[in-house]
């Protein structure tokens, strides 16, 4: 991730949230989606994205499917049942975090 260390801790939540909204996604697609949604503000690098995806897969939160697309193999990720439950928890955690930060940084808006 290029922009800020602040985003780093939220990468897992971002991935889970995106996969929750789509049936399945591949690595490059995730980076492009994040880039488009944040109007280029947040660029997820390969060095951050794939380790995070593999970690989530190893933890059993993601399932993998391989398909042949345009002369090459493509690895699609989708949420497992545990992954779907974890997404809800992570999003709640993040919302709570944003609320706390808001209270600290800008009490008027909190």
């Amino acid at each position, binding site marked *: 991730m290029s922009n800020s260390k602040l985003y780093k801790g939220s990468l897992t939540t971002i991935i889970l949230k995106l996969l929750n909204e789509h049936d399945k996604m*591949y*690595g*490059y*697609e995730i980076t*492009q989606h994040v880039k488009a949604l944040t109007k280029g503000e947040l660029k997820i*690098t*390969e*060095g951050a*994205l*794939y*380790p995070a995806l*593999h*970690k989530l*897969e*190893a*933890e*059993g939160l993601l399932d*993998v*499917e*391989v*398909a*042949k*697309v*345009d*002369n*090459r*193999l*493509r*690895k699609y990720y989708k949420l497992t049942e545990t992954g779907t439950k974890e997404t809800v928890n992570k999003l709640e955690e993040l919302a709570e975090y944003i609320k706390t930060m808001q209270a600290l940084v800008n009490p008027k808006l909190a």
Partner: protein
Amino acid sequence: MKLTKEDIQFIDTYLDNSDVVFADIRMEMVDHVASDIEERMAAGDTRGFYNVFKGYMVENKAQLLKGNKQFLKSADKKIWKTFLKELKNPITPLLFLVSCIGFYVLYQNFTLETFRWCLSIVPLIGLTGFILTYVVYQGVKDNKRFSVVERLAFPFLAFYQLPNIFLIRTRELKDTSDLFWTIGGASLALTLMLVLVIISVKLFLSYEKRFKNIA
């Protein structure tokens, strides 16, 4: 514009030469690089595949290869997680119990030499299981190297050493305590190795399932 088979092969060979030796890791990187190059070309980059590829690598090679090491850590994590899950399977204590009874029967009915010989082949059972799984997998997958399958060698080698600790006590077998530790230790080692063989087959099958739709 979509890349040709030759372009894809070029990227694959380049990454293979850059120490991304496992096919399952490389596959994902190849797709990422190819998707990026295709997008650059679609956005109007007319330099041709080779130059666009070169440009991409100059900018991103370090980031791309960073994921390689991390992937191996995840592969290890996946193995140990599967292993621990399998340990909780009711079949595991049953395997241990059957091994204990089997070794005790051996001790009661055969000479001490035969008993010792049987104990000494315990490590080989697990090792043979791993080698067979590995050889079969390599054959099926055209000698391509797969991370999780290869990383399984580490727990196998660790457990291979385990029986040696207990076998030391078989030299004398002076009392019941020695017999208890010997049979218990050998059964434990045998059970752990059989569990590893089971998870090797399970991981092998999960890879098969993953790649089943590919011609």
